[in-house]
């Protein structure tokens, strides 16, 4: 469904990703793990078009057979990709409801807005309670829920999540991971960037380990969880 093929990406003279390839098949949960500064967020930003692969041989990104790496972000999300960015990045001065409405701007989601909104409220009742509040008044966990809800409003085929559990207390981390699993069960493909490998790997069909801008390991999630390198580096065992 999503093919990231040998992309080289950087900021000015600083190259961050070196020939990274990642594939996601329809219906999967795929996670990418790696230390801070490995290039995980850069990978997400490149997929959605906020960063470009280096010209001329920076690799290619295709989604359902269509090249993404030359499209603008607003065109990429219209293909059926939604993002929960690092730090949630909800619109702080807009109400919770308006944030969710913003999620449903893409043509594929517009007509189904009322129905999707009811589904999102069923998934996160807290958001319905706070519908009229400005998003800046939400707690960290609620912002993360809002960011996930906003992404779901786009009726995406592929959901990208960049560290949705960052800074949340352990019970909330568990709840968010459980929500992601349920979202996947509804048929939405998930590409997840997550440091909490303890939660993320067991539910991932496949996973990649990204270090220093290169993929160093890949395999089924459960298998990677038993890998000695992963256990030492990410679980501290």
């Amino acid at each position, binding site marked *: 469904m999503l093919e990231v093929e040998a992309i080289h990406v950087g900021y000015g003279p600083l190259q961050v990703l070196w020939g990274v390839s990642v594939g996601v098949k329809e219906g999967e949960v795929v996670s990418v793990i790696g230390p801070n500064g490995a290039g995980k967020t850069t990978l997400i930003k490149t997929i959605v078009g906020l960063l470009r692969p280096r010209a001329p041989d920076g690799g290619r990104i295709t989604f359902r057979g269509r090249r993404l790496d030359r499209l603008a972000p607003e065109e990429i999300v*219209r293909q059926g990709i939604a993002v929960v960015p690092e730090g949630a990045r909800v619109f702080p001065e807009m109400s919770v409801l308006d944030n969710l409405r913003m999620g449903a701007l893409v043509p594929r989601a517009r007509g189904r807005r009322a129905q999707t909104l009811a589904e999102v409220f069923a998934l996160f009742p807290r958001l319905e309670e706070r519908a009229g509040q400005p998003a800046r008044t939400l707690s960290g966990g609620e912002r993360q829920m809002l960011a996930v809800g906003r992404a779901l409003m786009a009726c995406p085929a592929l959901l990208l999540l960049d560290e949705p559990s960052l800074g949340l207390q352990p019970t909330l981390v568990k709840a968010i991971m459980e929500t992601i699993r349920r979202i996947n069960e509804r048929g939405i493909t998930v590409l997840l960037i997550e440091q909490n490998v303890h939660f993320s790997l067991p539910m991932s069909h496949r996973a990649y380990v990204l270090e220093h801008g290169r993929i160093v390991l890949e395999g089924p999630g459960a298998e990677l969880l038993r890998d000695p390198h992963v256990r030492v580096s990410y679980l501290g065992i």
Partner: protein
Amino acid sequence: MDQLAAFGQTVLNGLLQGGVYAAAAVGLSLIFGVSGILNAAHGELVMLGAFTTYWLFKLHGVDPLLTLPISFVLLFGLGYLLQFLVLNRTLGAPLLVSLLVTFGMSLVMVNTALRVWSADYRMMAVPYFDRSVYVGPLIVPLSRLTAFVIGLAMVGGLYWLLQRTELGRMIRATAQDWEMASLMGVNPRFVYAVTFGLGAATTGVAGSLVAFYTPVEPNMGLTYTLFAFSVVVLGGMGYIPGVVWGGFALGIAQAMTETYVEAGLSLLVAFFLLYLILRFMPAGIMGKGRVE
């Protein structure tokens, strides 16, 4: 009693002028709040709106009230194109760049206007605007009352559009986080162009309203740039409803000065208020503006 009436009349004059100031400033606030552009050609948009109304009335006999939508549409188109073709190239550049570019635009507009329309002062003579409404001892000129009501209604309409419509949500989202807005499917360059269009359109209409009761001339823009800037700072940078309070504050302060000190000090009053507010209340009268 006479003194009281004079005082009341002064406050009333200030309020009437303040409503038009609010209309003339709201576009500056909108554009700054969304795109981070300080439009140095702002007053020239007032001038162009004023001339639109003047010439349509003078040459084609169009009722001044009917020129307002024409002014709106023409200035919207101009604003949209200026942002789309020119200002979008300055996105991400320091504030000074857009300030210089818009300053250049203002020079082009003023000098073109001088060339084609000459530096003459021109005043519309609209029969039904010569009348006044009398409220007790107070006199309310119909032209000013009309301008006041339409000006404030326009500010309210713009606020409604921003808060309640899909386009408004797109504009607010882009103002708060344009990258995230683009990930919602919004084209930020389109939103910036529409925003500049709306800002220019409302400013042009304010210019049309000004033409109801003051002479029109190519150099009139600069004072409106300064007034609008003062009003926006008084109300709070980037806080749209603040222009109403800022407009009233400037309008009343100027009217007071004219009545009790000396006429012709209106620019000085604007600068003095600007100094006071920046010194003591940098987030504006309501404390809701942006401080950087």
